[in-house]
């Protein structure tokens, strides 16, 4: 009896959701994806899922930072670059090591070492940014915080891009592939094993991050800060610690994506642009500061980019999403999920 009742209420809430703006968008997206796949082939869905997963990761970091610390981060693309560079160097060194010592365990572990090493490098980098940049600003003044931080992050972005050029030159630093495995065919679409590997890693990262935020004490503390900073102080949460942690996590997510996509996008000084734009597309579409919605938004934006590339050509890949964003900002400035955001994980 109880089970039936629960099922009924679940069904009811699902239908109630479909009537909301978010529900309509999700349903429309799925329909469009299916229509596109019927028309042009199933690779559209496969590509959407693989790239969408990475945009989701990037956007999650961006949304987290905005939700918890009110930081509109325009250096997110450079955090992505830090991850790509770190992974490149780890992969290169481990490649040399393997060449010198044939048959070591490093050969099989190199992709994992590269991606996890880059994630750790990214989180350390984020923590350093918080301590050296954002904390200093917070100590001086909290007036016009959003604007000041926006300019600061632009500065960080310029410094990092040019620092990259100064230290490592303008050349492309990439790898051919992570895994030495044959491609796999899914729905008559040939997908490289790297894409599958990266997608699975990305899904694991999203799930781990979600569980951490939802159930761990520290995750709950991060959500608490995003909902009421004074309340968080009053119950004994150390804001400094949460702020370092938030930047570390956000930057680690970006670095993870950068490292994961290294085989598609080699590292070069201005490589951060495209991922930065894409993740901003996502957070504007779904509403600022909502991590859960950012996951869905990642897939929506990826689908639109892929469809425009397929139907209108490569050059239109940024134009249609931009037009979509202008439309959303005019019609529903809070984003399609943004009507009642109460915190980074809650809608």
């Amino acid at each position, binding site marked *: 009896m109880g089970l039936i009742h629960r099922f009924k209420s679940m069904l009811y809430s699902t239908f109630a959701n479909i009537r909301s703006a978010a529900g309509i968008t999700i349903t429309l997206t799925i329909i469009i994806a299916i229509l596109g796949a019927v028309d042009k082939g199933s690779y559209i869905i496969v590509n959407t899922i693989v790239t969408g997963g990475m945009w989701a990761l990037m956007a999650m970091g961006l949304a987290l930072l905005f939700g918890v610390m009110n930081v509109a981060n325009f250096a997110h693309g450079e955090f992505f670059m830090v991850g790509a560079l770190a992974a490149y160097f780890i992969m290169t060194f481990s490649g040399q090591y393997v060449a010198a010592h044939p048959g070591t365990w490093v050969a099989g572990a190199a992709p994992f070492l590269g991606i996890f090493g880059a994630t750790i490098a990214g989180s350390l980098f984020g923590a350093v940014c918080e301590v050296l940049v954002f904390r200093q600003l917070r100590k001086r003044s909290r007036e016009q915080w959003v604007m000041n931080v926006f300019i600061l992050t632009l500065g960080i972005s310029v410094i990092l891009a040019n620092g990259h050029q100064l230290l490592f030159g303008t050349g492309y630093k990439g790898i051919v592939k992570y895994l030495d495995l044959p491609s796999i065919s899914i729905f008559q679409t040939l997908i490289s094993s790297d894409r599958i590997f990266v997608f699975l890693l990305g899904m694991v990262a999203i799930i781990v991050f979600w569980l951490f935020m939802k159930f761990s004490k520290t995750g709950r503390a991060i959500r608490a800060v995003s909902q009421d900073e004074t309340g968080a102080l009053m*119950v*004994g949460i*150390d804001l400094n610690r949460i702020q370092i942690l938030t930047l570390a996590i956000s930057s680690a997510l970006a670095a993870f994506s950068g490292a994961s996509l290294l085989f598609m996008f080699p590292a070069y000084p201005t490589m951060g642009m495209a991922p930065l734009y894409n993740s901003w597309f996502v957070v504007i579409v779904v509403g600022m500061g909502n991590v859960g919605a950012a996951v869905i938004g990642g897939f929506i934006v990826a689908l639109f980019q892929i469809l425009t590339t397929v139907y209108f050509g490569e050059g239109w890949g940024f134009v249609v999403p931009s037009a979509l964003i202008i439309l959303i900002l005019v019609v529903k400035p809070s984003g399609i999920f943004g009507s009642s955001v109460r915190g980074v994980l809650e809608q």
Partner: protein
Amino acid sequence: MDSLLDVKHIDVGYGFLQVLWEVSFTIETGEYVCLIGPNGAGKSTTLKSIMGLLSPQKGDILFKGEPIAGLSGNKVCRKGISYISEGGNLFTGMTVRENLLMGAFTVGDKKQLKETLDFVFHLFPRLKEREKQLAGTMSGGERKMLTIGRGIMATPSLLLVDEPSLGLAPLITNDVFAALDVLNKRGITLLLVEQNAVKALKVTGRGYVLEKGKIVLHEKSQDLAKNDYVKKVFLGV
């Protein structure tokens, strides 16, 4: 023997605007003290300064003999002070239960946490009924109960309560005051800030009157209630 709380000549302000002038008072362990005064007298500012949400420009605050003036809120909380703010500062996107668990953020002992949680549910059965509801979707009275519940989850020795009756129906106000009474009987020291002076003077043992940022009177609550000045200014008699 030190007092539980000893506020010594504190000056507090926001930027150029000074709100408190040389405010001093003491609270002994187990007392129930009220701080009454008109709107804008600096009552909430006093509580915020004790809690560490504002730092005094001058003067000292001693808690169990230790200086706490200028410490940040999270450190003050760990010393054993909880602040029930006027607006609640609840985590509106979390459930009642999650809010209560957040209140026990500084409590490491699982058994103690469970006991306090049971006590809170015993004190406010309404919270038990609403355990899974989001804090932001509750009524004003329920929110006030949750705020108090979250405050005592940290098992504080001193509870600062800011305007518990504000915006509540008389019946619920009575419930809230009854709960505060229970807390005091269980040994929690209370500092109550109220605009509703009649009510505050009825339930507390001692009272301070704050006016324009200065302590102007200090007596037993029952004597204050008979004081001509207080009668004229606050009680409207």
